[in-house]
């Protein structure tokens, strides 16, 4: 490249020379070479924003087994590609370093968290459900048949999937657990 051409490629020179100073004239070679990371994704997965109930469409960009970007889905008749500050931050929601990926356990009267294996935790929780249910079971309440336990309660569901809520309600009802609630009346 000749010196004149090299100098002539400088954005400031091009801007002074009359190219649109805020568009083409401002482009450097480095700018020209930059590619959006969305362009390099292995896969684009269609999803829905996890925050409020508007249900904005999301496109999840995945490369090498990691989420590289989450953007609004322009095809969505709900959102037309837009996301609010929360929806636009949802890549950080799934990738931020503070996310917990280990089971933690606090024993009664304990002062610190302890590590626990997932299988061990599941066994311990199942043991407690069985024990508490047996200890607090009511066949009757004041002479009326109730078939239930008031010893176990559950809260949550509005942030979960329909299929998850379904298994929760199904399992709890079969176990006689009636104190099942979520964010809908809070």
């Amino acid at each position, binding site marked *: 490249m000749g010196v004149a051409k090299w100098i002539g490629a400088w954005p400031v020179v091009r801007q002074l020379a009359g190219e649109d100073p805020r568009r083409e004239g401002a482009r450097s070679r480095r700018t020209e070479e930059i590619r959006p990371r969305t362009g390099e994704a292995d896969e684009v997965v269609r999803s829905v924003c996890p925050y409020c109930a508007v249900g904005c469409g999301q496109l999840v960009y995945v490369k090498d087994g990691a989420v590289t970007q989450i953007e609004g889905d322009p095809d969505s008749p709900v959102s037309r590609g837009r996301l609010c500050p929360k929806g636009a931050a949802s890549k950080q929601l799934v990738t931020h370093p503070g996310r917990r990926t280990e089971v933690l356990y606090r024993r009664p009267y304990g002062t610190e968290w302890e590590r626990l294996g997932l299988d061990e935790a599941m066994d311990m929780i199942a043991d407690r459900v069985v024990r508490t249910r047996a200890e*607090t079971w009511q066949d009757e309440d004041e002479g009326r048949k109730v078939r239930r336990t008031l010893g176990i309660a559950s809260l949550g569901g509005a942030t979960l999937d329909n299929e998850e809520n379904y298994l929760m309600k199904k399992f709890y009802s079969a176990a006689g657990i009636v104190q099942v609630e979520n964010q809908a009346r809070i």
Partner: protein
Amino acid sequence: MAECHPVAFQWVMEARRRGTKVIHVDPRFTRTSALADRHVPIRAGADIVFLGALIHHVLSGGHDFREYVVAYTNAATILREDYADTEDLDGLFSGWDPGEHGYDPKTWHYQGGPETRRHPPESGARHAEVGGAHQYGSGGPVVHHHGERDETLEHPRCVYQVLKRHFARYTPELVEEVCGVPLEAFAEVADAVVANSRRDRTTAWVYSVGWTQHTVGVQYIRTASILQLLLGNMGRPGGGILALRGHASIQGSTDIPTLFDLLPGYLPMPNAYDHGDIGSYLADAAGTTGFWGNKRSYLVSLLKAWWGEAAREDNEFCFEYLPRLTGDHGSYATVMGQIDGTVKGYFVVGENPAVGSSGGKAQRLGLAALDWLVVRDMTLVETATFWKDGPELETGELATESIGTEVFFLPAASHVEKAGSFTNTQRLLQWRHKALDPPGDCRSDLWFFHRLGLLVRDRLRGSTLQRDRPLLDLTWDYPSEDGEEPSPEAVLKEINGTGPDGKALSAYTELQPDGSTSAGCWIYTGCYAGDSNRTARREPWRDPVVRDGEPAAMVAPDWGWAWPANRRILYNRASADPEGRPWSERKRLIWWDAASGTWSGGDVPDFERRKPPDYTPAEGATAQDALSGVDPFIMQTDGKGWLFAPTGLVDGPLPAHYEPAESPYPNPLYGQRANPARQRFERPENPANPPETPVYPYVLTTYRLTEHHTAGGMSRPLSYLSELQPEPFAEISPELAAEAGVRNGEWVTVLTSRTAVEARALVTRRLRPLRVMGRVVHQVGMPYHWGWGGDGLVTGDAANDLLPIVLDPNVHIQESKAVTCALFPGRRPRGAELLDLVERHRRAAAPAPIGDPPVWKEERT
């Protein structure tokens, strides 16, 4: 709406661009107000007066949509002679029983209607059972289809005339006095609503928890329903009362309810008093006319989905396996049960009640009294860490070493690490595909609950106890791709339902009462029609869709799937006149096409496709056959929109203005100050601010910000969002700032009888003092997203700790939008001094020493 549902607000802006007038009624000036034609500031807790005055305006001016009102509502129906109104009884309806704190609703019924059966007397927290509100699901209670009617609307006891008398004192002058809204502002709203509600125009009302979180929350919505029915704005494009909900699938978790009082599809949970067998449940749970007349098909199909082969005709399809209710088992009642030691184990799944629920101290005392607690979330929320960093440790009310709760924290998969469907605020199911596996020990809740069910069943295998049969007989085998997590599509197919051939059903009308079909949630039947996941459909849709000059699609029918039957506007039969013609070309949606003998148009008709407008039911007809061709509200037993609710509500058949439980004012309308039927918890964990006390002189209302989500579990751990809104603040007017001696940006302490919290003062004209009942009232606005710790990057006092636990008696939601508070400059004291401060004010306030100077003023000198 622009703050909390900003992406949906683009459609309001779109409408405004096309000429729609946008009015924002809110105590605060927000981003919504900034983009509206008019902002109308209102005193929090006074909306029934505002809406009631609009009803009065419509009725007194003859502005109702008479043809719609006569044909489609119960305006013409005649009430019993012994019904007495709040106008007659100084704020009570007939049937009030002071001993039980509840109503006997029998006098509210239609003339000639059946006697409403009443449960045995209950009291206290169980008084809501008396009216039986949560027995009815969405079907509403039974009424006689052929009630006595006067279609001239002149009979003195017809609903129309009763309404006129009931709302006669809800005048613009009353709005000015009670709401603090000037006559001119109210007139502008009233004129706009009337001018935009007729054959060729509609008005929509949009609301959120600003209307629901009151001790009269259900009656707020009822008032809007009455107005919209009178104006003919229901079931029509551009009309309706639109709830904006706050969580991704809060609608789905109501339809498929993780709620105590419902079974999937708004079937009521059976109660111990009346539902001993399937026959008594079906006789009681909903009417025999309208689409709830098929409730046996919906219930039996659900029982088949849950108990499969074990559910047979000869054992009532395992109906006896369902546990029975005996009262309010909602989350606040549950917390009291924790404190009292009856509730020992607690699952908290994607929720943070230690920060997000009213009266946070009671929540934490409840958590500390448990045997075991399981928290599933993506980060450590305060509900998981209360034993280590909760505010009661600082005050000395709790000590880590003496909290016996065993806590399990299990990390959860994110929305991109699992497939599944959300149901959005417009009833639209949208499928999320899975992008990648969750990291480490993170698992979906589908995995967790399925695995838990397997492990519990393992432990009970071989049990001969009757109580274990429902778990052992439960259908719990789901196909799995990885051998671990059930296939979410298999679960969705079970929800959709299958026929005898195992294939997915197409519509809930295919469900059978004999056990030959199964469906986990009948209103979702069709979402998997043709064994194809309709919720995953993503056919783009661009506005406007016009082909050959005709609107080809007025909705986006091939994007996702909306319950029921992919209908986008409910009760849309009402978009056509009684003869089946659109009310106007401009507002047409569906119409009767005589040539083809079907309803057709731009949406799926919410009506039997081949039922003509002139159809008249035969004597003794049941289910949908009992509704005529002019009965658009097909889930109601009489097919009519209810201006007057003859039964189904526990606090009155009509809305009446009651002051919030905590209010600086008396009720100018009635001797009855607050909702007499409100649900109270009179316990030491839940002190109340006495009304009309100068100790707590200001109105406090809580709200959300664009940049945070609810109790912060999904926003405070994120640096982007934490930087945008780093700390709690209290919005106050310059006038209140001057009165309290606070400057913008300084610390301010807000105090109620529960606790005191500190925040930065945001002195702004967005909040302005209102003149109410002859004196100025100041309102304080506080966002509630912060908590003391957990994994949040930013911390702050939890505003919800200030709130009382006092509930709407119909649905048990708390009053968090209108309470009273004190406010003074500076940070709150720490440790035991905080308790002293709160206690001193409590003592000063009780019994309400009207006229005494507020305690904080003495302290400042």
